[in-house]
């Protein structure tokens, strides 16, 4: 798995960061998380205002955004045919002539991963063979997580066995809402163990945690328990990724890095479907975490329709004419 990611060209230094081994559970680290919602919202609203990315810069940043997309399909009507289409789009996310026009045809830009339900892992792995694109699977009773722990662990093991290199688990929201931080820590630790070599992305379902302080605490517990990524949402909550949630989570990541030296990745998911939104997220990451995080090793968008808007923007950049959806290959 690691080797496959390393073969990709995304990382600035070309190498994946060392995995976060986690920390023993430290309740004090949770107690000191003071989050002021109004101030967080004010800062979150400022990224798109304080920084503006234009012309070639915008094109390059949007290509970076593509490289960080977990191209996702998580629907009841997913079929192998649908997933094969998605995988081919993942391998060639942008029309070749556009990439050539931008002078990046040889960079081999692909999306960051393909994200599917367990039943479709095998199809995706087969379709992506040799592309270097990992398959991510949602797990642990996604999206609500209301199944027994043993089944959750079994599901993870099955998915890893089926070839998933990344497992997107959902945490038990109840443990957050009842303040059972130790329980949450043990749960995530168990997931990490079950994942083995596969990377674990912990979905907090931020829209269901009630407060930003809970989002910060849950982020810390997951990182202490060894999460490789922390992720906002399943995409199925009524509120999914937002910039304020993101700010709270990336600040937790930054503090965790300052404390331990380990870099944990970040994945906002759900509701990000405009190129402009993607730029704001990238700005947030650059400003709060730095360029080291602007790599699919450490940053992903969980998105299904974002790519389409980026393709149109890239064509517009190249031609000066506004593009249309039908001009870009479907997935």
């Amino acid at each position: 798995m690691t080797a496959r990611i390393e073969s990709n060209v995304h990382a600035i230094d070309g190498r994946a960061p060392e995995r976060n081994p986690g920390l023993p559970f430290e309740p004090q680290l949770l107690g000191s998380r003071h989050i002021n919602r109004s101030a967080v919202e004010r800062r979150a609203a400022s990224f798109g205002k304080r920084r503006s990315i234009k012309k070639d810069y915008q094109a390059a940043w949007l290509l970076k955004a593509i490289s960080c997309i977990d191209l996702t399909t998580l629907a009841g009507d997913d079929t192998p045919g649908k997933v094969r289409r998605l995988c081919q789009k993942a391998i060639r996310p942008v029309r070749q002539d556009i990439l050539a026009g931008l002078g990046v045809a040889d960079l081999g830009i692909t999306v960051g991963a393909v994200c599917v339900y367990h039943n479709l892992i095998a199809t995706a792995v087969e379709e992506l063979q040799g592309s270097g694109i990992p398959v991510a699977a949602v797990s642990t009773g996604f999206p609500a997580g209301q199944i027994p722990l043993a089944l959750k662990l079994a599901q993870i093991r099955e998915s890893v066995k089926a070839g998933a290199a990344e497992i997107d688990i959902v945490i038990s929201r109840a443990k957050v809402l009842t303040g059972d931080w130790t329980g949450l820590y043990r749960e995530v630790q168990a997931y990490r163990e079950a994942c083995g070599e596969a990377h674990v992305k912990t979905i907090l379902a931020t829209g269901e945690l009630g407060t930003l302080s809970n989002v910060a605490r849950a982020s810390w517990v997951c990182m202490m328990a060894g999460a490789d990524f922390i992720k906002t949402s399943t995409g199925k909550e009524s509120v999914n990724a937002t910039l304020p949630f993101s700010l709270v989570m990336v600040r937790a990541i930054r503090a965790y890095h300052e404390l331990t030296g380990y870099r944990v990745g970040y994945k906002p998911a759900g509701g990000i479907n405009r190129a402009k939104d993607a730029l704001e997220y990238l700005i947030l990451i650059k400003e709060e975490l730095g360029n080291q995080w602007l790599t699919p090793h450490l940053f992903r968008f969980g998105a299904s329709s974002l790519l389409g808007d980026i393709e149109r923007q890239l064509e517009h950049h190249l031609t000066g004419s506004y593009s249309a959806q039908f001009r870009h290959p479907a997935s």
Partner: protein
Amino acid sequence: MSVRDIYTSMEYGPAPESAAEAQSWLQRHNATLQHLIAGEWTPPDSGEYFDTRNPASGEVLARVADGNAVDVDRAVNAAANALDGWVALGGHGRARYLYAMARHIQKNSRLFAVLESLDNGKPIRESRDIDIPLVARHFYYHAGWAQLMAAEFPGYRQIGVVGQIIPWNFPLLMLAWKVAPALAMGNTVVLKPAEFTSSTAVLFAEMCSQIGLPAGVFNLVLGDHKAGQALTVHPKVGKLAFTGSTEVGRILRKATAGTGKKLTLELGGKSPFLVFEDSDLDSVVEGLVDAIWFNQGQVCCAGSRLLVQESIADVLHEKIRKRMAKLVVGDSLDKSVDIGALIDSTQLERVTQMVELGVAEGARKWQPQCTLPDKGCYYPPTLLTEVQPSATLAQEEIFGPVLVSMSFRTPAEAVQLANNSRYGLAASVWTENINLALDIAPQIKAGSVWVNCTNVFDAAAGFGGYRESGFGREGGREGLYEYIKPLWEDQLSAAPVQTLPLMDGLGVPAGAVDHEAAPHIDRTPKLYIGGKQVRPDGGYSTAALDAAGRVIAEIPVGNRKDIRNAVEAARSAVGSASGWSGTTAHNRAQVIYYIAENLNVRGEEFVRRIMQLSGKDASAAQRELDLCIERIYTYAALSDKYDSRVHSTPFRNVTLAMKEALGVIGIVAPEEAGLLGFISAVMPAIAMGNSVVVVPSQHYALLATDFYQVLDTSDLPGGVVNIVTGNQDVLAEVLARHYDIEGLWYWGTREGSKMVEEHAAASMKRTWVNHGKFHDWENPEQGQGEVFLRKATEIKNIWIPYGE
């Protein structure tokens, strides 16, 4: 850089805002900015122009008319001629024009923003996202007040011609803060922008013509201090509003002293930014960015003095340094710039020198490795740690992107250090503990206190200073009072109701005493200081005369040391949370009712004294006593009813417009008005929680000295009312010059009024003087009411965002 390279480097790249439209606007004016007088573009009388430059590049943008006294006189006359028509238009008519201004500014918002950034050097993000939207908001809000003036301010009228002088740091925003309320309330305006930044004012003036604003309602005179000076002293200007340095504010205070011009001053600051250990530190850091790296730190209310709890100081400093490294300094028209150019090379030199001074005094300087543009007036963001309160930079305004940091141990010490300043414009308080936040905010001497936020403004909330940061408020209902006056002021008499004999000199002429009835026990009236009867420091007395001029007793002659002692007593009565201002309004009401009760008990004695001193007959004297008791009741009643407000500002927060006692108020009571004058002046002040040092009427001094016995029996804490008898104007000067008095009310002569206002310039204490006019104290319209309470209080706006 190629797309491919950028894909690796992930740099931002340039994001220039086009200056083309703004440049072509300047070209349409032939790059020459003229006065607007009576609706006409008017060249300067002198024929002289000076250049205005883009601070980001040093390039000349335009030449600016150099206004002088002749230009100002024309403009003031134009405003005076337009006044009647503007008033006659009525609130609704004026509301339509203000509404049109708001709409027009919105429709041309980008032109205003780009021109502002070109002229001032501030980042386009700030002019686009902060300044110009606030400008539009200000006109909308005040269109509403124009509409509501008749209903909301009965008994008030416009002042007339208003002169307004504004600074260069927020050119159009300061114009809006000044012009919108003035026009809404029916005044006409002569505005002088700062010499560095005239452009957006000219664009605004052009807009006034475009919307059909009647000629002369808004006049613009460009130029430097010559024009400002002429505007300040022009006799037809009824009100002067100034925003700028404390130094210049002081000059204006002196220049207008005794003229009867209303004055508001919004001056400098060294605003504290308090960080307690339970704050959201990452948010604190962003707060600091908004506090001191907003507008290059050229903000009068910039949070320039960081006070951080010792337990978290190192952690916070490290976070600040990391954040500073991400700040982008550069051309004001680049959309990705955080810090633009300082206004002028003189300002750059000043900031540079002050930082050097700070380092010489022991501060540790930190600046990020950031690239500054080759030309233009740029200074990097700077953090100075290990700055002690005694350092120059802890006390003096730098007006640049320089943060100085100090630490504190406890909340009490935080308040002490926060208030250890001559200024009092704003403060920021960071804590996640609402108990702490709401404990600290009222204790800080500042007109705006931002809890867990900073530099937030809105038209609906008043802005203005305590102490040497000036007086008056801009914005909110409180700001409108600066542009209106009560109708009864027009009714004040030029002559006193009664002229009274006064004893000249000290001592008592031999044989002059008329002992009405023997046997007689000698009574010694004394001064009343700190709740005790004390002899005067000087050891002199003077004669008290009855209405016929006969000597009836001796009253002490207080001197400057007695005033000093009285102010100390008054200070200690309000100086702590358990003091008179800190006690509940209900408790104050009880004490004040009790004063009325005890005065009534001794009514006969006071009636006799009133008759003796005033020559009134028994029924007239009884009426005065009854009025006194009624007036005391009025203020007892008002003690707990002059409520604070919550302003409707447009984001998720509570904006408390808290009415706070000024602190210590000096009162020079009306000479001619006996007990009623004394009561009418003292009661509103103490009802609002102030302590007072009163210099009573010289003729009626015995009523004041009799009265302290009433106070003694009424549970009034010592030091709340202090009485120093003696020569009023001599003692008024001591009070006016005293630095530890927040307010001074003076009812006396024209000359005395001028003297008081002149001397008050040093401390910037709030003065209320009568310019030799006389109240009819028996008339409740003139003798009591909300005006008295407003003068006894100061409005502090406390902003409390919420949301978990």
